[in-house]
């Protein structure tokens, strides 16, 4: 009886492993194969080109350079804000911290477009300055500059850094600072000798994470920078899709994969130290009293509000106003397929595509994620390997995944290249780590004694699963589901590779519309972006509502 139950679980446990094997490991191996043996025999031409060409080493250097700059500016801005959030009590703090996370779930295309509408030559900001000072030229020239990319990256990652540092800082009691003060430390010495050294683990961890995110940034750079600012990620896409140089794209992907693995190792190492907050005490936050304190607090709050809302407001305004007039024709035209467009469908149809794929990806990611979480939770040598294994898709850039898909899954028995199924499958893969990270903490927080108590009270193992585990996992599952849905709705890098003709999703449609000539397509892209932003914002609000302390490890 018992033996049979174990075998049954063994088979169930195989499902996520097989999924990962077929849709993650196999495509990556295909990339390796194509890069090393483009024509079936060992041929390192692509690598030689990579190593000898200034152009491609320039790509790598630029990727690192822009990521480092983005990380530095993000930390520079987030550190004082984290201090304010951790050390002061003020009204609306929780709400603001929560809202500041919104950009993190916004699709890259939406963010890129939002910044274009805010800071572009015809952007809201230039318009405002022109009107205010009666200028006849645009004073801010940021289009297609590195600065624009960095600003968008800071917007994107600010909340990630803020959250990590705030939560760490809040757990460090005020007592240490008070002790230093009693020992004669002035404000400068406090920062230099106490606060920053204490914050080091959080700074490192947040820095590593932001670096990883910006290293693999794709949509923002593709839209705001173009090929002139090609990072590894953009170069892979460009070589594979525009130049059809698959061996070179594969070689670049390989570089990308190994850089990411190295960075994930660093990040994991920094994260371990994060759990050891040095000293904790109950009082960590106080009210701002002095003028300086209140000023600092208000500047910080204003900064976050401006950084957060101005691009989104610009996007919404630009999508609804034309020549200073309310004009919703672009919204109305979304249902029609325009002639001469690169699109095969009316833009609005992509909404149904996206919703359909997101629901499918969510369902698959939930099922696989739940099983995987149970596997990981079981103690033993195997489960210690499983946790990082299932996190690997997170450590692989979306473009690499998409590229791996099209070169691996294009022949029988897995000829999915032309099938729309490839889209929800790729989204499932990307969403899976999010689901596991949402469910696993809840699962781990259920003491085994609860299940055992149920057993001694007459519950069969399946009863215990249904009456104890599932209700207690409810929130974690809901958070994971919403994450999966939102991730799928906004996914851009992989979709751009795998979405074909009629099966394109909203982000892909937005990108294609931007490529179409003419103001109409541009304004349609804005309208689609607003729609997508609303869907993702709704998902985000749901996550924030459901999230309780201890659920979700992000």
């Amino acid at each position, binding site marked *: 009886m018992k033996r049979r139950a174990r075998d049954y679980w063994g088979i169930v446990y195989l499902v996520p492993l097989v999924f990962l094997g077929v849709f993650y490991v196999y495509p990556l191996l295909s990339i390796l194969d194509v890069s090393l043996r483009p024509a079936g025999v060992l041929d390192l031409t692509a690598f030689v080109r990579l190593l000898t060409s200034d152009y491609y080493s320039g790509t790598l250097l630029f990727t690192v350079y822009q990521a480092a700059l983005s990380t530095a500016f993000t930390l520079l801005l987030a550190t004082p804000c984290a201090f304010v959030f951790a050390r002061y009590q003020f009204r609306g703090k929780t709400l603001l911290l929560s809202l500041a996370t919104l950009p993190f779930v916004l699709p890259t295309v939406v963010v890129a477009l939002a910044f274009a509408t805010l800071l572009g030559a015809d952007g809201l900001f230039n318009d405002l300055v022109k009107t205010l000072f009666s200028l006849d030229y645009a004073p801010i020239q940021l289009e297609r500059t590195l600065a624009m990319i960095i600003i968008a990256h800071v917007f994107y990652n600010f909340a990630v850094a803020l959250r990590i540092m705030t939560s760490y800082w809040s757990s460090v009691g005020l007592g240490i600072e008070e002790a230093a003060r009693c020992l004669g430390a002035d404000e400068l010495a406090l920062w230099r000798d106490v606060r920053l050294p204490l914050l080091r683990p959080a700074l490192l961890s947040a820095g590593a994470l932001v670096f990883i995110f910006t290293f693999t940034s794709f949509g923002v750079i593709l839209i705001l920078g173009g090929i002139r600012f090609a990072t590894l990620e953009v170069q892979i896409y460009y070589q594979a899709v525009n130049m059809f140089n698959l061996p070179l794209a594969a070689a670049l992907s390989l570089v990308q994969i190994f850089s990411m693995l190295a960075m994930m190792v660093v990040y994991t190492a920094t994260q371990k130290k994060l759990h050891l907050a040095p000293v904790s005490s109950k009082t960590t936050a106080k009210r701002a009293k002095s003028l300086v304190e209140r000023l600092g607090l208000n500047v910080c709050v204003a900064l976050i509000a401006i950084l957060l809302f101005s691009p989104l407001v610009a996007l919404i305004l630009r999508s609804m106003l034309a020549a200073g007039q309310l004009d919703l024709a672009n919204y109305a035209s979304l249902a029609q397929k325009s002639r001469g467009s690169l699109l095969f469908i009316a833009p609005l149809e992509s909404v149904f595509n996206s919703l359909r794929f997101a629901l499918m990806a969510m369902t698959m990611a939930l099922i696989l994620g739940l099983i995987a979480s149970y596997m990981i939770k079981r103690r033993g040598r195997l489960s210690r390997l499983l946790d990082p294994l299932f996190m690997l898709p997170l450590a692989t850039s979306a473009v690499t995944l998409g590229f791996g898909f099209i070169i691996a899954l294009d022949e029988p028995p897995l000829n999915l290249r032309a099938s729309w199924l490839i889209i929800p499958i790729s989204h499932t893969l990307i969403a899976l780590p999010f689901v596991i990270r949402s469910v696993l903490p809840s699962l781990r927080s259920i*003491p085994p*004694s*609860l299940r*055992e*108590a*149920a*057993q*001694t*009270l*007459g*519950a*069969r*193992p399946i*009863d215990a699963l249904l*009456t*104890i585990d599932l*209700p*207690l996992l409810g929130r974690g599952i809901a958070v994971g589901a919403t994450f999966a849905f939102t991730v799928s709705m906004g996914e851009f890098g992989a979709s751009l590779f795998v979405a074909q003709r009629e099966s394109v999703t909203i982000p892909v449609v937005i990108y294609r519309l931007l490529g179409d000539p003419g103001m109409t397509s541009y304004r349609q892209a804005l309208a689609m972006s607003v729609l997508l932003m609303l869907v993702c914002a709704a998902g985000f609000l749901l996550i924030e509502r459901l999230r309780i302390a201890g659920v979700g490890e992000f």
Partner: protein
Amino acid sequence: MLRIAGLSHAYGDLISLRDVSLAVKDGEIVCLLGPSGCGKTTLLRIIAGLETDYEGRITLDGDDIRPVPAHKRGFGLMFQDFALFPHLSAAGNIAYGLKRLGLGREKANERVQSLLRRVGLEDLDERDVASLSGGQKQRVALARSLAPNPRLLMLDEPLGALDALLRDQLALELRRIIKEAGLSAIYVTHDHREAYAVADRIAVMNIGSVRQHDRPRQIYRRPASAFVARFLGLTNVFSASDNRLANLLRLMDDSKLKGAPWLLIHPAGVRVAGDGGDDAFEFDATIESAVFRGGHFDLTAVAASGLPLSFRLRELPVELGGDLRISLDPDALIPLGD
């Protein structure tokens, strides 16, 4: 009657129980008393069916219970951390086992109410368990394990999570409730005072085996080994070859020691001279420490030979550092095994 014979168990290479034999008669409360890690919780888990890899035999009224899975044993287990289901109310927790029995809603409800009354929580039925105090949680956990009328009730350090004051009070109450329900029970604790209060019989355990198994008073008066004596807080345990004992052993009938490696001087037999006991040994000692405990003093006095003795007095006859004539009841000298 539950009978355990030759039970052994190991976690990998770590032997947790070796050759344990024990019986629980109907309606009897047996305490498993021992330091943490002695295997008492493992023993409970094996009886409950939560650990299945063991050697030996456990029978209930003569039937081997090995093939019966945990959920069909009908044994109640009260967990150390209470393991209350956080998504159910107090009443929901208590009703959980009743639902598994297929009891109708009305009957289940009636039983839940009567149990809540029995543990003194009438008004708390719909309360969220997270909002209950420690003592209330303990009562809900007890009511939950009592609800399906278990054939055997097991309690794993049921008072361990509570503060000392509450512990004394609840120990008595637990005994009353278990006796009223007419249940056989196994009660795990590391606190000997709790065991005295609750148990009909006590099994003292150490490193996976039962070291002594007897009624509480018997165990206190006649601990069988140095380990048991020390674990019960009887500190006057000396090696039989200790030089400081030489005078005492000369006075005492040597044959009494029977080659035992240890000697316990039971604090109950240490008195101030003149307080009775005719054939007592008498000697002078200096009071080295005296701790006021409210109703009594805990004293340590050192004899001329350097032998330190701990004992208890109602009043402090001389000040700290003063000398005292001590009389020792010959019955207080107890030879001990290892």
